[in-house]
């Protein structure tokens, strides 16, 4: 068990006034078998009334609507968690076994899977770790080549990507191998922004694996949201009106 203080903030700045701005945030870490949230404060500026719900995947959703003109939206969370990965999460959903929007394999991923599948033997954990290592040999971590809309197939054919791409590709391969897998968005000691990793279903519980670092997940990770792929987990989604053409997003996260 580890006590972790967490802080996360996003500053959204627009180059002109926007209005009728609806948003949905997934930044309140859920209480799970492996993470106890002992305190968590959220701040959103400008002031806006918000409502909390829990979505289909077990994520805390904070929804709000800013009607009047504004040029920025800032939100932050600050709190303390007790993380204990010696315990296990068991919130299984069958949909995690099936490919989703970002994870549909194309030719290159199918070919790669065929190449590695002969060596993919043993327990679910052995197979998952083998696939993760094989992926880590093939893909290099480089920023600036992919974005949040990049699919697993696209990133894999580029041969480079960031944690989101690593996670999507690993999920594709695990699901091709008959292992249920889900996407996790969260905070980790290794990353100054948000991080993403993967959980796979062993048959009776979830195990975390971090494909961007090719290592198992330990108590240095805090889950913010989970789902089939990035689309279910986006930390912030919003729709707004205005003449703005650019938005600047600054993200910071600190674990201590």
């Amino acid at each position, binding site marked *: 068990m580890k006590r972790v203080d967490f802080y996360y903030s996003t500053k959204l700045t627009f180059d002109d006034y926007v209005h009728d701005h609806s948003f949905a945030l997934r930044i309140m870490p859920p209480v799970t078998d492996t993470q106890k949230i002992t305190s968590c404060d959220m701040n959103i500026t400008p002031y806006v009334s918000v409502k909390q719900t829990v979505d289909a995947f077990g994520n805390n959703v904070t929804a709000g*609507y800013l009607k009047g003109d504004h040029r920025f939206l800032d939100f932050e969370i600050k709190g303390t968690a007790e993380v204990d990965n010696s315990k296990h999460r068991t919130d299984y959903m069958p949909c995690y076994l099936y490919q989703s929007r970002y994870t549909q394999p194309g030719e290159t991923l199918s070919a790669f899977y065929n190449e590695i599948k002969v060596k993919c033997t043993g327990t679910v954990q052995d197979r998952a770790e083998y696939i993760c290592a094989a992926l880590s040999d093939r893909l290099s971590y480089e920023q600036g080549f992919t974005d949040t809309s990049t699919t697993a197939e696209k990133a894999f054919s580029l041969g480079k990507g960031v944690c989101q791409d690593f996670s999507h590709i690993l999920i594709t391969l695990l699901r091709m191998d008959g292992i249920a897998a889900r996407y996790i968005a969260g905070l980790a000691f290794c990353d100054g922004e948000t991080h993403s990793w993967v959980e796979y279903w062993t048959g009776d519980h979830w195990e975390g694996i971090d494909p961007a670092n090719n290592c198992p997940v330990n108590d240095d990770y805090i889950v913010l949201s989970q789902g089939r792929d990035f689309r279910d987990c986006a930390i912030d989604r919003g729709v707004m009106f205005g003449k703005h053409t650019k938005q600047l997003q600054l993200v910071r996260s600190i674990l201590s």
Partner: protein
Amino acid sequence: MKQVNEEYFMQAVGNADEINELLRRYGVKFGIYKNGVFNEQFFPFDPIPRVISAEDFRAIEKGLVQRVNALNEFLFDIYHDKKIVSDGIIPEDFIYISKGYLAECEGITPKNKVYSHISGIDLVQAKDGEWYILEDNLRIPSGASYPLIARELTRIAAPQAFSENRIVDNRGYAELLKETMEYSNCGGIRAILTPGRYNAAYFEHSYLAEHTGSVLVQNDELFVEDNVLYQRTYSGSKTRIGVLYRRIADEYLDPLTFLPESLIGIPNLMEAYRSGNVGIVNAPGNGVADDKGIYYFVPKMIKYYLGEEPILKNAPTYLPFYDEDMKYVMDNLEKLVIKDVAEAGGYGVVFGSDLTKEKLEEFRKTIIAEPRRFIAQEVIDFLDLPILDNGETVMRKADLRAFVLSGEKTKVWASGLTRFSRNPDSFVVNSSQGGGFKDTWVLSQ
């Protein structure tokens, strides 16, 4: 036809041109997108009504109520405990590969557990008089307004046809729809959401709004605040919406939950819905129950959930997913009709008898490669109905879309949309494929 008073019945027929002219004037249109171009067509009306005897209708009615009740149970089960899967009635694959299954709807219970408020069930009558279910439409089945307005106009053109025959009045549809919407109302006004003027069924949206006393809205006048859905009013205030009969597809409903690029949706509508602050008619996620692959399992659902024998039959259907069925399909492809489960509106339907030897061989390979993508059905020799073609009566294939409404009770509207194929060689009657429609008379005795 013996049960109806022929003389007055023919009055309606004699006034066909006048009725079609009235329909044109009322703007009874059907829009079609083809190759990216929007075309509006008049939906041709044939004045010879389909007549269903009271006895026949009672049997159909019982069967439809049973079927829709089972489908509603199925939807609740799939988005909660999934017992029908764990009990081995339906293989898991069929649920989760279906495009209509929306994981985002897991755990949501709509008000009063009604998922399919308005079900459009397509039936055909075979030559031996037996009725068969062709497909279930539980998402946003359209078409109820066409027989409604046709009836209204026929009553004007040929009043005696109705005074001299015992026909069940079908004008209660709006009242029935209103009742159904009210049963799912979470507090507020009723609204019908249309994607706008260029939608295929815009005529219907406006017609139903007017007749049910609902406001007709587009997304730009709606917003969600504190997880409550509101309509902006001209004076700058807001009116709460308690039930939304939406005529846009699930994936476009809420850009913050589904397709982010949707410009016709309402941000955070799903949050309001999940919180129980607004009813959505029909419930998002219903597509999993009207999937062509799931159709095969509906009779099994009726037994499983209701413990009853199905009253209405499915057309004999084979799933190439099962080895035994695959063998049958391979051996009999030339006499079967094959449907692509992902397509709708009469697209992706292939008759084995239309294919050449080479094409059949090619198609066999496609089916073997993707067995889950197709279902195969026996071609039902359905009853031809008379239609008027340039003053002559000719016989054409026709089906019936029955509308089943689920409020406090499940009720079948005593009318329906009879669609026919204008092409003598075609079995496909969908309006998007150029078919026409008739009024459907249900006799009261």
